[in-house]
């Protein structure tokens, strides 16, 4: 392809002691794509996310975002470069209100310093006001503005997932990583989630990489799918190709008895 990919993962791997959790993964994500990442439990999908977001530093290969090398950057730096994520097990700031959860994601865009906040200079008030307005705007998009003063831990599960996605988006990512967003959701909630993902993708011109076990969801929304097994990329292609790929079937169901 002519244009440079948004994300280029080049032969990336990580080793924990003697265990190769992920090795030799190559992937490319282009602007605006919605790509799925699937694989059996323990295949290394979340580890791969952790590599992309800087939680782990890859022991081999390199990760490039818009041609910029990300290896070795701290997670908060990578977030500021434009990769944001949600977590498999929800990690909201439970004791903070819904509104404050989103405001935290806006923090890196705040220009007022600690000193101006302590002295309550005008820049503090204007900065905080701007954050508040933007955060409320965001909550409206996600239909959470009615709950803005509720503590995040008191929200029902489905709305916690929603809030986590809202928070990730508030950090203004170019690439959004969703780690099993539909886990624990009922079919109705999953359907709403699919609509939400399609909506935010259009609205924010996002590129999305999605880990998911819910196959109808993955097959339904993703344009391309990568399949990981035992830390290695075993297949990639359109949902149709993946569905008929013997290697994938083998990884999920085991080898055929001959």
């Amino acid at each position, binding site marked *: 392809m002519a244009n440079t990919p948004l994300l280029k993962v080049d032969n990336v791997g990580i080793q924990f002691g003697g265990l190769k959790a992920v090795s030799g993964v190559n992937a490319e994500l282009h602007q605006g794509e919605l790509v799925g990442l699937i694989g059996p439990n323990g295949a290394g999908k979340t580890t791969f996310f952790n590599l992309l*977001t800087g*939680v782990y530093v890859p022991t081999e290969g390199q990760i490039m975002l818009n041609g910029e090398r990300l290896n070795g950057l*701290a*997670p*908060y730096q990578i*977030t*500021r470069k434009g990769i*944001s*994520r949600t*977590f498999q097990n929800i*990690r*909201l*700031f*439970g*004791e*903070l209100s819904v509104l*404050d959860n989103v*405001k*935290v*994601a*806006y*923090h*890196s865009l*705040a220009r*007022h310093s*600690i000193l101006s*906040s*302590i*002295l*309550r200079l005008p820049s*503090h008030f204007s*900065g*905080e006001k701007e*954050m508040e307005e933007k955060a409320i705007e965001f909550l409206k998009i996600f*239909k959470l*503005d*009615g*709950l*803005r*003063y*509720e503590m995040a831990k008191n929200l029902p599960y489905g709305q916690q997932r929603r809030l986590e996605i809202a*928070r*990730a988006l508030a*950090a203004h990512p170019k690439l959004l990583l969703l780690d099993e967003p539909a886990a624990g959701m009922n079919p109705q909630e999953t359907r709403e989630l699919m609509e939400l993902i399609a909506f935010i993708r259009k609205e924010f011109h996002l590129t999305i990489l999605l880990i998911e076990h819910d196959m109808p969801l993955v097959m339904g929304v993703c344009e391309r799918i990568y399949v990981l097994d035992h830390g290695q990329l075993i297949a990639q292609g359109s949902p149709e190709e993946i569905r008929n790929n013997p290697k994938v079937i083998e990884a999920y169901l085991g080898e055929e008895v001959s």
Partner: protein
Amino acid sequence: MANINRKKGFWLSIVLALAVYVVGQVLISGEILNSFYINTLFFMAINIILAVSLHLIIGITGQFSIGHAGFLAVGAYASAIFTMKLQMPFGVALLVGGLAAAVAGLIIGIPSLRLKGDYLAIATLGFGEIVRIFLLNVDYVGGASGMQVSHLTDWTWVFACLLVTIIVIVNFTNSTHGRACISIRENEIAADAMGINTTYYKVAAFAIGSFFAGIAGGLYAHNFYIIQPTNFGFLKSFDILIFVVLGGLGSMSGAVIAAVLLTIVSAFLQDYPETRMIIYSLVLVIMMIYRPKGLMGTKEITQFFTKKRQGIEGGESDGKHTAA
């Protein structure tokens, strides 16, 4: 509307603060309080400063530090050196005490804040002990026999320091920077993933907390006529920790209330030094059984007044939400 409320709250706090100051000053200069009560009052204010400064580190940022007496000691000795050896004015000495403690906070914070939970607690405990042993062996500050300090602490200084401490920490907490710290307490991995420079904020909170502990140290040193390394042992650290835990982790007003109550309790138990620690411990045990979240939980006193308004506002938009 919010603006008017904010202004009203601002002036109300100023009037309230002035009133407290004037009442204190009248009580002291009118000789209505005897020296025991005056001393208790000063001690209470110093304890509040300590409690609030540790609250920023433990309650807000969630970094379990139990070496706060170390910063108190650094502030106490640094300010005492400035007044007694270098003949500097008290105000300068207080500031130097605070800055010295903040520098100590940076030095200890940058390496040890990589540690989490129990490990950080042990590292800070170790720091407190190092400071104590170090002071014990330095002849310049009198070693074990301690250092003579003149009595310079008065109500004006105590009150001014207390006020500044509370204002700074409240303003810090109620800003995006405070929220960044709370997000670290709530979930460090998520905070990191949201673009918060967690190391920076942990160190910043630690340095601000130690700065005020150092100020408290200056006031403490000049309130008695002598300071000795034994005043700053780990039991002192635990005293401060107890204010924060008893008040409720995450609640500044809780820490203040706990500091006030426990100062009174321990002042009146001073005549029974044998039973003092027993009663003190009993209070804690009972507290932890019946109110494990502390006196205030994570709530602040002001929330009891604003709750109503917010409740109505929330209710209205809730209604809209369901109708839509």
